[in-house]
């Protein structure tokens, strides 16, 4: 019961924070919608697509990028969540979480589930908007996508937790954009099929194949078309397990950096 109450408490707090930051929902949707409505429209003819699995017919570029943009939402939300953990640590409220009697791994799991819920809300809202440009996926595809969205959220959320613990100051978080989010996103199959990348550069193609985010996108793409990408599923499960293990380990107590608190001395003080 204690675990359940603790889980509900963490979930409730994250949802409260999400509700309070409604602009976060807006910006989370504006970014992929710009790609979908503007970028895709402009590049539709420039980026011709061949027929590749899971598609059984030629598709418009808008349809191709929807899974990638959904994964982008999850990626950005996970990094946003890790940013809020860095903020919590700087503000001190992380200590409150870590003082709970339940194991830290459970607390971090609860955080990841809360992150998953927020991501899923954003992704399904995005799917609704995608209907406006006639990207209508198989009905069951939306259902199959849910566990994949959850898995991707947990993977990227764990990566975010790991990053949150390695970033010592809030100001350094901008580096995450340049060194994690953008490379992960652009070196993947989110915006272009990998054969196009291979045509341009073999080594870039290899980097994209190696990128686990690519596996995540393909897993989601196949899921949305009611198909299972088994190899990608195994890869994402493995990297999730590894990332989560390291994230939990990074939250174990360790000798901290120097810092002795308040330096001011009162008149009547020792």
């Amino acid at each position, binding site marked *: *019961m*204690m*675990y359940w*109450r*603790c889980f*509900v*408490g*963490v979930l*409730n*707090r994250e949802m*409260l*924070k999400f509700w*309070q930051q409604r602009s976060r929902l807006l910006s989370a949707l504006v970014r992929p919608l710009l790609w979908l409505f503007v970028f895709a429209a402009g590049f539709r003819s420039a980026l011709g697509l061949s027929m590749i699995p899971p598609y059984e017919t030629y598709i418009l570029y808008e349809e191709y990028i929807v899974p990638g943009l959904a994964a982008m939402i999850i990626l950005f939300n996970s990094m946003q969540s890790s940013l809020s953990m860095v903020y*919590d640590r700087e*503000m*001190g*409220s992380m*200590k*409150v*979480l*870590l*003082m*709970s*009697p*339940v*194991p830290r791994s459970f*607390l971090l799991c609860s955080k990841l589930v809360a992150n998953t819920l927020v991501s899923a809300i954003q992704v399904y809202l995005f799917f609704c908007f995608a209907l406006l440009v006639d990207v209508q996926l198989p009905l069951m595809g939306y259902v199959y996508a849910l566990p994949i969205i959850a898995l991707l959220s947990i993977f990227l959320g764990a990566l975010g937790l790991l990053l949150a613990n390695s970033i010592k100051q809030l100001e350094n978080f901008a580096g995450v954009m340049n060194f994690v989010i953008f490379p992960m996103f652009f070196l993947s199959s989110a915006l272009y099929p990998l054969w196009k990348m291979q045509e341009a550069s073999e080594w870039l193609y290899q980097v994209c194949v190696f990128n686990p985010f690519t596996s995540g996108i393909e897993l989601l793409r196949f899921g949305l078309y009611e198909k299972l990408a088994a190899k990608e599923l195994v890869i994402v499960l493995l990297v999730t397990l590894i990332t989560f293990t390291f994230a939990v380990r990074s939250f*174990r*107590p*360790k*000798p*901290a*950096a*120097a*810092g*002795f*608190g*308040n*330096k*001011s*001395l*009162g008149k*009547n*003080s*020792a």
Partner: protein
Amino acid sequence: MEIDIQGVSHTYGKVTALDDISLTLKPGFNILLGPNGAGKSSLFALLTGLQRIGHGNILFNGSTITQNRASIMKSLGVVFQQSTLDIDLTVKQNLAYFASLHGLAPEKSISRISDLLNELDLSDRLNTKIRNLNGGHRRRVELARCLIHQPSTLLLDEPTVGLDIASRQLIHSVVHDLAVKQGVTVLWATHLFEEVSPTDPLAILLNGRLVERDVCSALLTKHQVSDIHQLWDVLTHAN
């Protein structure tokens, strides 16, 4: 709960924050006096398990945090020097969040919040966001947060710093009552002399070393001084 700090040393790189600290805290009001930078917050980080102990051991009723984390955490209430409240949430939301982290049932949590806010004269602030509270009120909420799960041990790191006299007295009296009337083990870290009364067990921390520990009045007698200011002068000159 009895806390036994045994030969604890802690360093940050080449800086020694705590040097072979040994101290036993028994139920009641215990004061840890030391200037800023003496190592009080470092000791708190070790006591709460937020940092790993470099050398030595801390036992809570005979167990370390590693051995018995859940039970020890349940019994600890901590006010850190730095605020730990979420400024975007209300008083109620902050307290309910902490209560849930300690597994309190929602109905119990509501009744505890109500009781504590009454006691700390904050009941009219229930739905106020923390960012809209002044420093004194925020500190009282911190205290309510640390008391919500009815801990048997309170660790308070400079709980009254920067507060007006009324808030200071209120917090001091609430905590003192818990220590005296309910036998809660309290460690009250401070650098303020006026928070030390002659009957308090006192430990004095200077440059990471525990230079004295005894009941305050006994220390005054031992050093043949009449008040804490003089005791401080004697100890700082000797160390």
